[in-house]
């Protein structure tokens, strides 16, 4: 395992301090916790937004704390959901008297730990709602199991729900907006190499020199299929068509997309995928209104990429394009 670290046990703690060093104008660390909160909290009376999850997905989630997105981000150990006391600390940091929306990626661990935290907040009189993000279409949805996973599309939930909260929408409205984002969101990723969980010290899986894993999870969980390496064109088309089918996107519909690196895949490759994406949307007569390209939800140093599509309506489009100012995503009005 080759990583620029000091000790496995202190990675998350050190990284949170480092985030504050790099972004003091955006972030502060809530004393004694693994929570990053806005250094300038939003006005009282506005709904707070908290997201969180295991570390190793940087810039998620601390990178999205700031104007127009999150109020606090709660970190867990690498790839391990945060504990309820930490989530609760995040809720307290984010609460400005109008309740707090928790953005939770649909993993058993995250769901349960956030649920326990909600029980704590409830006892404290802080109103909370949850939006469960389950955009990963690689996993079949089912009521009888855990359902689908939440992956990179989560960032669209942060952005759009965050903009609504910033505009002063109340808790239930922000939740409704967040839920409709999720209902119109689909993502799927692939891995070219494994990542190495620091506490584990070795790659989570092995891929042959000409293999890729389709439908990979963002924690190195196995995907749905191991296939021979595809060209950028084939890969983009394969992900794209899957997402379009899943969302039943039809002629003339408006979409936003995210071309996300799992970590090691460089921007030059994402740009190639983005080019294909633009052509594909043209062919299927979709109106591609926005592309987020870069590292948004990573899996440590895994090579690979994910594609996310979000169906837009006027409300989501307006909120997506609203100004935001965070370390990892800034929308500047032109």
């Amino acid at each position, binding site marked *: 395992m080759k990583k620029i670290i000091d000790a496995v046990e202190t990675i998350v703690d050190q990284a949170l301090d480092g985030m504050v060093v790099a972004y003091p104008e955006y972030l502060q660390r809530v004393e004694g916790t693994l929570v990053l909160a806005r250094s300038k909290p939003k006005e009282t009376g506005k709904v707070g937004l908290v997201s969180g999850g295991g570390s190793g997905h940087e810039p998620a989630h601390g990178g999205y704390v700031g104007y127009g997105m999150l109020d606090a981000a709660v970190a867990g150990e690498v790839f391990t959901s945060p504990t309820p006391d930490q989530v609760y600390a995040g809720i307290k940091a984010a609460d400005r008297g109008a309740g707090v929306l928790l953005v939770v990626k649909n993993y058993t661990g995250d769901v349960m730990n956030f649920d326990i935290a909600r029980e704590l907040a409830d006892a404290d009189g802080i109103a909370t709602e949850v939006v469960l993000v389950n955009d990963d279409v690689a996993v079949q949805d089912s009521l009888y199991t855990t359902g689908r996973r939440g992956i990179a599309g989560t960032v669209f939930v942060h952005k759009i729900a965050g903009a609504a909260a910033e505009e002063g929408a109340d808790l239930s409205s922000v939740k409704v907006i967040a839920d409709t984002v999720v209902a119109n969101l689909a993502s799927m990723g692939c891995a070219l190499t494994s990542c190495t969980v620091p506490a584990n010290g070795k790659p989570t899986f092995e891929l042959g020199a000409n293999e890729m894993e389709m439908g990979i999870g963002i924690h190195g969980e*196995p995907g749905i299929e191991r296939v021979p390496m595809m060209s950028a064109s084939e890969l983009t088309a394969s992900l794209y068509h899957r997402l379009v089918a899943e969302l039943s996107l039809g002629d003339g519909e408006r979409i936003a997309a995210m071309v996300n690196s799992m970590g090691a895949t460089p921007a030059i490759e994402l740009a190639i995928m983005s080019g294909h994406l633009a052509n594909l949307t043209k062919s299927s007569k979709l109106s591609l209104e926005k592309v987020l390209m870069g590292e948004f939800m990573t899996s440590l140093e895994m090579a690979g990429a994910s594609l996310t599509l979000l169906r837009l309506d006027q409300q989501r489009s307006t909120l997506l394009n609203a100004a935001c100012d965070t370390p990892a995503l800034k929308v500047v009005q032109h």
Partner: protein
Amino acid sequence: MPHVIPRHLKLCSISMASMDQVAFRQLWRRFAELIHENREVLNDLDAAIGDADHGSNMDRGLGKVVEAFNANSEASLHADAKLVGMTLMSTVGGASGALWGSGMLKFSTALPDAAVVEWSGFIDALGAFVEALSKRGQAVVGDKTMMDVFLPAMTELRDSVDVQEGSEEIVVALAEHAKGWSDATRDFVARRGRAAYLGERSIGHIDPGSVSAALWFQALADTVRDQVS
């Protein structure tokens, strides 16, 4: 491995009528040891159908439990169990952290504010623990989770408790059965937890959480054996 009991002693049927704080702490210390020894195994099992951290998670949390024991001498079994629950809840993380943590808090509320509890009271508290897990996690037998060990183990303990109190034979047998129930998860399709995303591809791999659950019953057996010897 400490507390090794000479083989011939195993044959005599001795029971533990009650569990006191010493035994309770010994049980958790032993569990911590077993988890630490199996950390890699658990991570590797989790790598196959999850995210490769179950060993790290449990080991981190149980290490903290041992630290908490060393730092705090609590006044009662209830307080000891609460210490375990709070510590696991705040240090394990993941699905297992929420389950073990909230489960042990329920366990603690079922224990008296006293230094010792009857064996049957201990079993009842364990029942509260398992019930909390069921409620929180919604998993049933066959879902390929730790419940595939806890649920049948609870039945076996309840069936035995009227007849024998903390018998070494019972807990040793239970530990063996627990291992078997855990092994049996290999053939299941995961329906709860991270492995559920794999569907049919989860077949052929033992569920890591069931292995750590079985290790807990191993720790219980080791503790009873040591206490009665």
